[in-house]
Structures are given as structure tokens and as C-alpha cells.
């Protein structure tokens, strides 16, 4: 499970952080990009490119300049960024058990777009990135609460008047409500599992009684 910072826009590049089983954590040299609209994009690479452009436009000489294209806008780094989108969708599917059709409302994109995310084939707008990251933060927390994926319960189990898929599909994600529902759902799932275990054991006992 990765830890990512929350917030509606990513102001700075943020390193991936991986909790370890012994309670420690590790950082990574891999970073999420800053949002193209962030102050960091303005003062940093965007500013450098603008200064370069301004210098070139003085037409002092014919030149070729190489500027490292650091990641400031997600859609510029196609291979890594779209792989991340595919990872986020895969994680959401695994944790919730929801179908691609149901996940379209969660990610607020068309089914085709979601399939393209999964195949790392989509150029992703800043708005869609924000949604992907916001959902991923919720899914991350859900994975800590739910003992296993709820599947159809995500669409049918209601708490405080809402199902999990309804809460995850809201334009603004309400973390508190999602987590309260998740805890209730976790209770349901654990109870179901206990019941199934007891039932299976009873069946086994019956089947083997006269062995």
C-alpha cells in the first residue's frame, strides 16, 4: 500500500512512501508530479522554459537547446503517468470488487476512457488526474479497513442512507462518510465470513460423521 498526500491539487512533486510491516516506512526516488497549475510549476520548470523561449526569441543565433523535461504535468510523462492510472484503476477494482461499468461513475469518465486507462493508452487531463488521485487516496484507506472486497455489497449495503459506490461517485469525496460506511461494511463482511466458516465446518462434520 502506498501513502500519498491528500489535497485537491498536488502543489509539489511528492515522493512515493511505502509503509513497512514493522511500522517503519521507506521513501522512493520516484515522485508524483506537481500539478501543472501549482505554484511550483510556475516558479520552476515552466519558468525555465519561458525564459529559454524568451532568450531564443531574441533570435541571436541559430541554436538547439535541450531542456530536461521534468515531470510537471502528468500528461507529459506518458509511460509512467498512464501506468499509474492503470494501477489506480486496478487497485480500485481489487479493493471494492466493483465492475468497470460501476467504476465509470467513481472515476467520472466514460467506459471507453476507463478501458484506455487500464491499457495505459490515455492522455489524461489535469481534471481527470485530480479525480484519479482523489479516488486512489480513498481506496488506499479502504484497503486498510475492509477485510476483503465487498463486491455487490458495495452497491447494496446502505449506511446513513448511502452505499459505498454512491459515496465514491460523489463529485466531492467525503472521506469521513466513506470511512464510517467502510467500518460498518467491514463488520458485515467479517460476520459473513464467520458464518460461512461455521456453516462449512458443519457441512464437513456432517459429511465425515459416518466415515
Amino acid at each position, binding site marked *: 500500500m502506498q*501513502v500519498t*498526500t*491528500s*489535497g485537491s491539487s498536488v*502543489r*509539489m*512533486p*511528492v*515522493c*512515493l*512512501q*511505502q509503509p513497512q510491516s514493522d511500522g*517503519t*516506512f*521507506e*521513501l*522512493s*526516488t*520516484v*515522485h508524483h*508530479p506537481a500539478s501543472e497549475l501549482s*505554484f*511550483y510549476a510556475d*516558479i*520552476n*520548470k515552466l519558468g525555465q*522554459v519561458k525564459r*529559454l*523561449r524568451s532568450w*531564443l*526569441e531574441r*533570435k*541571436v*543565433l*541559430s*541554436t*538547439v*537547446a*535541450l*531542456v*530536461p*523535461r*521534468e*515531470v510537471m504535468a502528468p500528461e*507529459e*510523462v506518458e*509511460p*509512467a*503517468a498512464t*501506468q*499509474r492510472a492503470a494501477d489506480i484503476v486496478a487497485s480500485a477494482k481489487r479493493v471494492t470488487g466493483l465492475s468497470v461499468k460501476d467504476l465509470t461513475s467513481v472515476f467520472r469518465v466514460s467506459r471507453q476512457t476507463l478501458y484506455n486507462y487500464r491499457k495505459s493508452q490515455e492522455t489524461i487531463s489535469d481534471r481527470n488526474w485530480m479525480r484519479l488521485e482523489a479516488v486512489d487516496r480513498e481506496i488506499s484507506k479502504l484497503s486498510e479497513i475492509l477485510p476483503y472486497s465487498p463486491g455487490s455489497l458495495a452497491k447494496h449495503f446502505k449506511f446513513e442512507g448511502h452505499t459505498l459506490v454512491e459515496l465514491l461517485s460523489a463529485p466531492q469525496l467525503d472521506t469521513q462518510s466513506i470511512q464510517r460506511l467502510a467500518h460498518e461494511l467491514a463488520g458485515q463482511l467479517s460476520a459473513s465470513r464467520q458464518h460461512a466458516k461455521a456453516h462449512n465446518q458443519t457441512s464437513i462434520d456432517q459429511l465425515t460423521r459416518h466415515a
Partner: protein
Amino acid sequence: MMPANPLLSQAPLIHVVAQVHFSELPPLEESVLEGLHRRLVEAGFPERVDANLDHVEWSVQVSADNEPQQRVRRIQRVVFKGAGQRRLVEVRQDRLLLKTTDYSGHEAFLAELNEVMRIVADVLPGFDKGLLHRLSLRYVDLVVPKPGEKLRELVSEALLPPPLPDVGGSPLFGSTVKVVDTGMGRHLRVMFEEVQPEEGRLTKVLPDDLLEHVRSCGLSITAQAHWANMKGVYGLLDIEHVHIAEDTPAVGDVDKSEVFRQLHEKTYRAFWGVITDEARRSWA
């Protein structure tokens, strides 16, 4: 001779990069890369990852009306990773890099670098005959105050960006840089970034040009316990010593090991010169 300084059990060093930059070789053929891979497996870099880097290229012709033209150049790189996600060798047509997040001292690092350079010279056709452009050694320290400490107590005041008390507002980011000519075609750059955590967590931990954006090429960094719950601003100390081979000798004609040793000496002095006694006690 380098001044003696105490070993730091909680050293803030998180990333070290040694780089050999040479004239561009012909595209690396698969058979050569396979041979390199076999040799690097024996040297402790068994995992091969093929990736790319994107560089934006601007060009302009001298005329009244032409706009600068932009295109993206995709540069091939091959990465060979060691066990534990702590070290890697990166090979490009014009560059060889050794990166580590688990630095155990200059002698060990230099020994490993020498081994890698020897392997690359043996396997890559034309490497030793290529022209050397630059050698560089770079150290990145993550200066995170412990509870009760402040960043300004750990590094020289000269490194810190202006506090701007009369402006008010909340600081977002700050940086300072100094470049020094150290002679023999070398320069040493010290850059310091003042970074705000977000929601109690670290944000960027590397300078922008060292940020990795391809997961499979990333390295892990062991975090210190107090990095988990950040209360205030932290710093990135980036020290790079660069040797520019102005006469572009053949790569094989340069005693690269000796150059790296000399580069290290000044970066070592620079580091100890910008941290405070408080920092030495805190990290001891």
C-alpha cells in the same frame, strides 16, 4: 589530507550519484546490452530495466519570423538494479551513472564505481575511445529537524532563503545556490531547498533533475523514524562537484578513479562546512 570528522549514525545522506558523461556512442545493440547485463549480474546489478527519458528540444533559425520549434526527444536508457532497491547503474549513449541510496562510505562507493567503469569499458565498444566531457559526484542530504529542533539550527544561516518577516503569508518554498570554481576545470555547486511538508508528510526529497518518474527505475530510501510526522519545514542539501574535461581527452586516457577521489574531497569539506555543531550532535 581530509580533516577528521566523526561518523554520523543518523546521517541525513539519502542519495549519491556519480556520473561519467562522454561523447555519444552509436546506439547500443541488444547483443552488447546482453553482454553488459551478464557482467553486471556478477557485479551485483542483476535486474535490467529498459526505459526512456524525454528531453524537450528547442531550435530556432535566425530570421525575422520564425518561432522556436519544440520537439520531444526520447532518449534510451538501460538501468541495472542491485538487490534491495538501493543501487543501480544507468547506461545511456552518452552517459554512465551509478546511483545509490545506501551509501556506506567513499571508499566502498569508489570501489564499486571503478568496477562498473571497468565492466562498461570492457563491454561497450568505443567507450574508452569516446571523448570525456565531464565527471561529477553528487550528494543529496535530507535535513529533517527532530521534535524540538528547527531547520535553521542544523545548517549554516548562509544557506537559508530570506525569511521575509515583513511580508507575512505562509512560506511555500525557498532555495539558494552557490557555485565555486575549484580549479582544474572544476566547479562545486551547493544548492539548498527549503521545503514545506504537506499534512505532516514529506513532499519532494530530491532535486528536480534527480526525481525519478518511472517506477521500475526508482530506488528505495530508508526513512528515519522522525520523518513520519513532520511538524515544520525541512531542507534538501544538494552538493555536486563537477570536473569538466575542457580538452575532451579519450575516456580511457583519464584516471577517473583519481578524479572522483579529488571530487569527493571538496564535497566532503563543503558538507561539513555548512552543517552546525547542533547538527553534528543531533546526527551523531
